[in-house]
């Protein structure tokens, strides 16, 4: 890594590895996360959660709990008049498509659908008293048969979760040309078929979720502090959809957020619960913080697909068709955008970076008695990448072609952009479309192959074999779609997303020349306070230390849709660039007034506004701000003060791509898989801060590797979560990773002025498939052509043993 820099005083900080401005508070223990907040007279809430995966609630007796020490109140679902949680993104796009929707209520009323669904809440003076009182609540349960597996859930005779969802189907959604794909696949020279499982993951940001609700009886207004990626959206959803009150009656504040990875996008029942309780208690603030074990049932899970792949093509390696059927397990009820993930964000990018002419996918959303499933880092795109990258390897193995060569053979070529992929990105109704706008895939792959020494792979395998190790190398030439999204596309009729997706930024220039930038996006560890300041410092020609970046409070920031889908740099920061442009335009006009020149004759060089041809006639940005704030001499028609807001709706998504290569060694005796090298060449466009970009890649790669090697949520057939704590769920540790070797190509995005694409998810999208392909490559010599993740030593050892037995 390049040495990091302190913020430069004169030259632009854009594109430089500037040390993060938010770090001093975090390294000294002065961060303020949700649970660090104490309010006067604050009470504590604990939630009683279902011990059954599927049960009816006959009755709940809270009388004993109410008389427990310190207990202030006990609530059950019937006490709460709110609507169920909203469904913001049902599956959409197909004619006649029906979504059978059931979302959670603040507390369950009649039945529970997974272990962990909330059924009662205790508010007490202390957290310990609240937990003590939970034990005294008696629920008369009627346990029901449960089903946790999506294939079993749609089978005849399966327990039924919801009356409105026959066979437990949330939706049956299709995309692409069925007839064309059927013809291409059924008539192909070569077809390879494989069932693959993309296992359920528990996201596990290090800070669990929590909220503090406060109702102010004097103003009839609510404030909620929430560990959220989307405070503005939560205000909208809670007010308009859940509580039925005017939006301006709720203020949402996200303090420092300790990681999120998608989990903190959504509208959770506990938000409504703390607000209800605070109002019921006459305005006492009520805090709730989930425990880690509790979070496995109260915060969303990710992935959980079962997919049948059919990939078709010619013996020369040309891929001509891809037919995919996926069952997406969405849990016992639906999270806020659960159905949108395995449909639009998955199936519409199934063909990756390849020009496959015929693609058709059927996706069935399924209810099971499990925790709800929604967007987890990458959200649909890791699942799609896993499908297509495994499929390419399977096809290459079938025809005996080199895995790099088959990718090269099928890449969309640089002169083929803009490219409409056939799984439907360009076919949204309403005239809106998004298309793959740019890319150059071979140089990234060639660089990665050279770095890893691909030409010497056979020699390396032989050397490892001599040490009792099976060496495998896996490629993942991924394509990501991020920077969501053009509003008219995401909101197109039939697409289903019920909102726009623009972003906003406001810039105020104080009398002293200090600049305050506010935005509608919401950091969770990405360093937005640094990167926004880099951009605005560059745009206005002022030192970074003069730029303060504020966010996370619906009071004081312009409305924004929040941070997820790797959209902050490409959408949010473009809004900030636009706002800076408005500031400069007004400053230019005022400079012209001060210098008695025409605005057209003012040239801007950093913070200097000069008369063209008379370089001595100039004003600094600070002088202009000072004079315009005082407004003693503002010209007719010009408003005082430099204060501009901009909104930006991107014309297209952005398309990062790259090649990741994993090298693993498997101990043939024990089945232990070791990741020994990891090479990543990514093209995320221009970089605002390459240090932060590298960090995003490191963390993203580790999360994807975690899925391949260790992680997986496991339920018993009865619906008990067997991986129910960090003791049982395998979180990646430092000792599991080599140094990641990062390279880059830079193809600026053509859709935004910064040329940025986004990097928050790329590592995760790419790395799972790279490691999976490496493990299967290592086992290929034993005749193993596929193995489902995670590659625990037990699973790999068993596969080796059965393969050897089969050979004997």
């Amino acid at each position: 890594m390049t040495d990091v820099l302190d913020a430069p005083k004169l030259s632009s900080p854009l594109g430089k590895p500037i040390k993060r401005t938010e770090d001093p508070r975090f390294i000294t223990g002065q961060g303020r996360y949700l649970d660090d907040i104490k309010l006067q007279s604050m009470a504590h809430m604990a939630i009683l959660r279902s011990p059954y995966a599927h049960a009816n609630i006959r009755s709940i007796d809270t009388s004993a709990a109410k008389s427990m020490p310190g207990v202030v109140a006990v609530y059950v679902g019937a006490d709460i008049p709110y609507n169920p949680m909203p469904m913001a993104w049902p599956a959409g796009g197909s004619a006649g498509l029906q979504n059978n929707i059931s979302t959670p209520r603040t507390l369950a009323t009649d039945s529970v659908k997974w272990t962990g669904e909330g059924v009662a809440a205790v508010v007490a003076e202390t957290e310990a008293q609240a937990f003590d009182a939970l034990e005294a609540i008696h629920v008369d349960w009627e346990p029901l048969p449960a089903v946790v597996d999506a294939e079993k859930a749609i089978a005849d005779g399966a327990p039924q979760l919801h009356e409105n969802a026959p066979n437990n189907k949330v939706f049956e959604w299709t995309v692409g040309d069925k007839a064309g794909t059927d013809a291409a696949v059924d008539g192909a020279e070569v077809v390879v078929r494989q069932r693959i499982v993309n296992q359920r993951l528990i996201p596990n940001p290090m800070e669990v979720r929590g909220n503090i609700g406060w109702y102010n009886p004097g103003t009839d207004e609510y404030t909620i502090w929430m560990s959220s990626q989307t405070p503005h959206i939560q205000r909208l959803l809670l007010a308009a959809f859940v509580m039925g009150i005017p939006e301006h009656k709720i203020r949402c504040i996200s303090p420092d957020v300790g990681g999120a990875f998608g989990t903190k996008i959504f509208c959770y029942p506990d938000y409504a619960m703390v607000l209800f309780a605070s109002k019921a208690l006459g305005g006492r603030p009520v805090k709730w913080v989930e425990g880690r074990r509790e979070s496995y049932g109260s915060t969303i899970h990710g992935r959980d697909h079962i997919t049948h792949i059919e990939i078709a093509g010619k013996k020369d390696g040309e891929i001509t068709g891809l037919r995919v059927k996926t069952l997406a397990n969405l849990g016992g009820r639906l999270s806020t955008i659960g159905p949108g993930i395995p449909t639009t964000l998955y199936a519409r990018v199934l063909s990756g970076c390849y020009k496959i002419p015929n693609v058709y996918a059927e996706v069935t959303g399924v209810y099971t008695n499990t925790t709800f499933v929604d967007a987890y880092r990458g959200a649909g795109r890791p699942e799609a990448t896993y499908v297509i990258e495994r499929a390419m390897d399977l096809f290459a193995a079938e025809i005996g072609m080199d895995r790099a060569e088959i990718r090269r053979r099928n890449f969309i070529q640089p002169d083929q952009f803009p490219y409409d992929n056939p799984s439907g990105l360009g076919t949204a109704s309403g005239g809106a479309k998004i298309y793959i706008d740019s890319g150059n895939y071979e140089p990234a792959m060639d660089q990665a192959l050279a770095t890893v020494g691909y030409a010497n792979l056979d020699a390396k395998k032989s050397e490892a074999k001599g040490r009792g190790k099976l060496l495998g190398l896996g490629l993942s030439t991924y394509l990501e779609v991020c920077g969501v999204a053009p509003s008219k596309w995401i909101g197109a009729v039939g697409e289903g997303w019920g909102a726009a997706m623009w972003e906003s930024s406001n810039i105020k220039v104080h009398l002293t020349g200090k600049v305050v930038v506010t935005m509608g996006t919401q950091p969770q560890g990405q360093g937005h306070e640094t990167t926004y300041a880099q951009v605005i410092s560059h745009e206005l020609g002022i030192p970074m230390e003069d730029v303060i970046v504020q966010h996370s409070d619906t009071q004081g920031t312009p409305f924004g849709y929040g941070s997820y889908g790797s959209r902050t740099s490409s959408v949010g920061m473009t809004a900030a660039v636009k706002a800076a442009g408005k500031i400069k335009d007004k400053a230019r006009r005022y400079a012209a007034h001060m210098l008695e020149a025409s605005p057209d004759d003012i040239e801007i060089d950093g913070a200097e506004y000069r008369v063209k041809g008379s370089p001595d006639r100039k004003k600094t940005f600070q002088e202009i701000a000072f004079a315009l704030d005082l407004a003693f001499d503002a010209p007719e028609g010009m408003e005082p003060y430099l204060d501009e807001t901009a909104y930006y709706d991107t014309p297209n998504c952005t398309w990062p791509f790259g090649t990741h290569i994993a090298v693993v060694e498997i101990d043939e005796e024990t089945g232990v898989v070791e990741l020994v090298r990891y090479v990543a060449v990514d093209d995320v466009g221009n970089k605002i801060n390459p240090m932060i970009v590298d960090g995003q890649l490191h963390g993203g790669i580790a999360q994807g590797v975690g899925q391949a090697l260790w992680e997986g949520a496991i339920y018993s057939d009865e619906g008990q979560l067997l991986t129910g704590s960090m003791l049982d769920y395998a979180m990646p540790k430092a000792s599991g990773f080599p140094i990641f070797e990062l390279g880059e190509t830079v193809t600026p995005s053509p859709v935004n002025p910064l040329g940025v694409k986004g990097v928050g998810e790329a590592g995760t999208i790419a790395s799972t498939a790279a490691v999976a392909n490496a493990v299967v490559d290592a086992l290929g010599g034993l005749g193993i052509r596929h193995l489902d993740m995670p590659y625990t030593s037990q699973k790999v050892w068993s596969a080796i043993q059965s393969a050897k037995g089969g050979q004997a």
Partner: protein
Amino acid sequence: MGEHISMTVNGAVRELDVEPRRLLVQALREDLDLTGTHVGCDTSQCGACTVHVDGKAVKSCTMLAVQADGAIVTTIEGMAAPGDGGALHPLQTAFWEKHGLQCGFCTPGMIMTAADLLANNNDPTDDEIRHALAGNICRCTGYQNIVVAVKAAAVVMAEPRGSAAPASV
């Protein structure tokens, strides 16, 4: 109510009454308002609550507060030199300069564990660092820059005194 205990926390004697079941991390966070020590799990896996007790790194969720009676406790708030503008501990500086943190939630525990490692091994290898941090989970960084930061701090701390670096406990 509860038991009376006395601890020296970040150099100051602190007296408090705690329920016998109160964990050390709860006493630090809730009774002493030292919220830099975090709680990331409930099974002692994540290490976000790591502090030093009598000079050794301890997960403060694994100890009752009453067990710390009479102990010398250092938290992340006590790592920089005392006073306004006090010099950062070399590990704090290194985490900042090497981008060893993103969301920052695991960072205090990482720094406290790494300080214990460096007190016993002033020139650790990458492997030694990665194994020393086995009880500290980070979900953001992929650990790479944490390892880089600990190595960088080790170099600074191995230099002869004279820099402003305060001693680790």
